[in-house]
């Protein structure tokens, strides 16, 4: 079986810089790591590999600037077998349509030239864009079934790489859990509840350092420049701004818990929130 996780290198949450021209996030020169949600995707792929056994392989795919290669090396340190890097200036400013398209073209190439992909695993969303669009969007390009918000892989059966199989997953809903079965190949997006990622082993770190990571630009993926990056994106960020943060309100004082409670309830009634 061949499992592929899509990961992204994202900046730390408290360090946002905006490009004044494009209104998008400035990525160069920022402290960055694997998007926290993608760690669950990598871990789940490695767990499925351990579960299915045989010749199962885990590949990792990212799109991003040259330094995003570090995220792929980190993923290999965490148990992935190979990394692939979609990289080129032409990809900058891509929205979720253009991003999912480029990743789809890379998956097609991997399926053709390395080995057929049976399962794509994405994190629920990234911590910078927060959209959660890439998993379902990829499924649309691939014409594969997909389930997002997966909290558990109940069962997986592979008939061998590129030979199909089935996967049974639990989707966390507002009112409970939906259990769904899909034929492979398929796409899932996973939430934090699914596992606890392991720390990279020393052996893994060595493998990450040594790995040869192919780098593909739009030409290598046979993508027309009309369909990549900012130019190829249906949507643009027309402006971005910092929301007005709430600043300090009123401190409720009192000599006893009862007095504080009484004053608080009064205030809440005044504000008409209870």
């Amino acid at each position: 079986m061949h499992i592929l996780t899509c990961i992204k290198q994202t900046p730390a949450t408290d360090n946002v810089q905006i490009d004044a021209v494009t209104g998008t996030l400035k990525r160069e020169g920022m402290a960055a790591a694997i998007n926290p949600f993608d760690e669950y995707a990598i871990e789940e792929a490695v767990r499925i590999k351990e579960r299915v056994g045989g010749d199962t392989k885990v590949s990792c795919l990212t799109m991003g600037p040259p330094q995003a290669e570090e995220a792929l090396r980190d993923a290999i340190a965490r148990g992935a077998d190979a990394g692939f890097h979609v990289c080129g200036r032409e990809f900058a400013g891509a929205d979720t349509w253009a991003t999912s398209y480029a990743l789809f073209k890379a998956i097609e190439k991997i399926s053709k030239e390395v080995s057929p992909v049976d399962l794509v695993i994405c994190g629920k969303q990234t911590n910078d864009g927060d959209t959660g669009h890439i998993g379902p969007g990829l499924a649309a390009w691939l014409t594969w079934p997909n389930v997002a918000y997966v909290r558990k892989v109940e069962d997986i059966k592979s008939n061998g790489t590129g030979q199909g199989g089935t996967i049974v997953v639990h989707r966390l809903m507002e009112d409970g859990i939906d259990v769904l079965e899909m034929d492979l190949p398929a796409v899932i997006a996973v939430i934090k509840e699914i596992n606890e990622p392991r720390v990279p082993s020393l052996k893994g770190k060595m493998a990450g350092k040594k790995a040869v990571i192919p780098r593909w630009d739009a030409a290598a993926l046979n993508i027309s420049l009309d369909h990549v990056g900012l130019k190829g994106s249906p949507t643009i960020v027309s402006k971005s701004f910092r929301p007005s943060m709430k600043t300090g309100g009123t401190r409720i004082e009192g000599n006893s818990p009862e007095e504080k409670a009484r004053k608080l309830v009064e205030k809440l009634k005044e504000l008409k929130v209870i």
Partner: protein
Amino acid sequence: MSNEQSILSIPISPETHKDVWVYAEVRHDNLIPTVFELLFLGKKLAADLNEKLCAVIIGKNVSQHAQTLIDHGADKVYAIEHDHLEQFVDETYAKLLTDLLLKEKPNKLLLPASTIGRSFGSRVAVQANTGITADATELSINKEKGGLLNATRPSFGGTLMATILCVRGHRPETATVRPMTFPRATPEPGRKGDVVKVPVDLSGFKPRERHIRFEPEVSQEIDISQATIIISGGYGVGGANGFNALHDLAKTLGGAVGASRRAVDSGWISYRHQIGLTGRVVRPKLYIAAGISGQIQHLAGMNSAETIVCINKDPEAPLMKLATLSVQGDLFEILPAINKELQKCGFGAK
């Protein structure tokens, strides 16, 4: 023609697209509450464009909801109805909605930013070759730019707001809308509207995704995504039993119980209650945080709550400084005292 080519060859012709559409999500036979927010918002956008407001419903026996949607402002309802559509299955639903969008050519499409809407919307957007904005909280018509949809959304865990525009003519401009953001439309019983039953032909369609079963959440409390009041606990709650004080207060106020990442990671309460960057995002009218210091990751999940109350022993905790109302003290003394005070005022009485 490959699927890729057929998506890329969908014509970009904004002038042929008209009307504001709302996806009326049905969950276990009921319209979810956010649908009524979408109808409120959609009505406004449609009026600004001088176009119609339409709703689309998918499922089994869903045309029973058509009049409700019309009462709440829809001028036209498209019902995609079939016995095989009882449960939401991404692949099947996305195929049916995409087919309808390509045929009817709406101008805008709004979906709830629910679990279903977020996943469904992004698949449909690619299949219909259009742009989508996730989790919008402010939406308006941009008159200077020929009636484009201004969709403003929080990103980076709410530290940055971005206004998204679909500038290259892709239609329908699509957005998922964060629940609890807009008022719900008020009904006008007996309002007139059209109901279109969309013919569904699933013969020859072999779904590769099947719904097997539903396991309902056993707790009787409302889900945090739909709660107007949330009582949330953090590391200061100290243990699973500590959450009893929060559940008691939630019961009195008719609210839901939330939690910080540390409380969930400590195993005191299940993940579905987690609020914040790695949990869920909520927008209640009243958010009471007990024993939560207020790290930026937690704020990302709740900073758009209308009123924030913080109860903490530490007056220097970040959330104490940010809260609308802050109370310094032991949550195990303050929460029961609040509960008692509320009961005195008649809250929680049967």
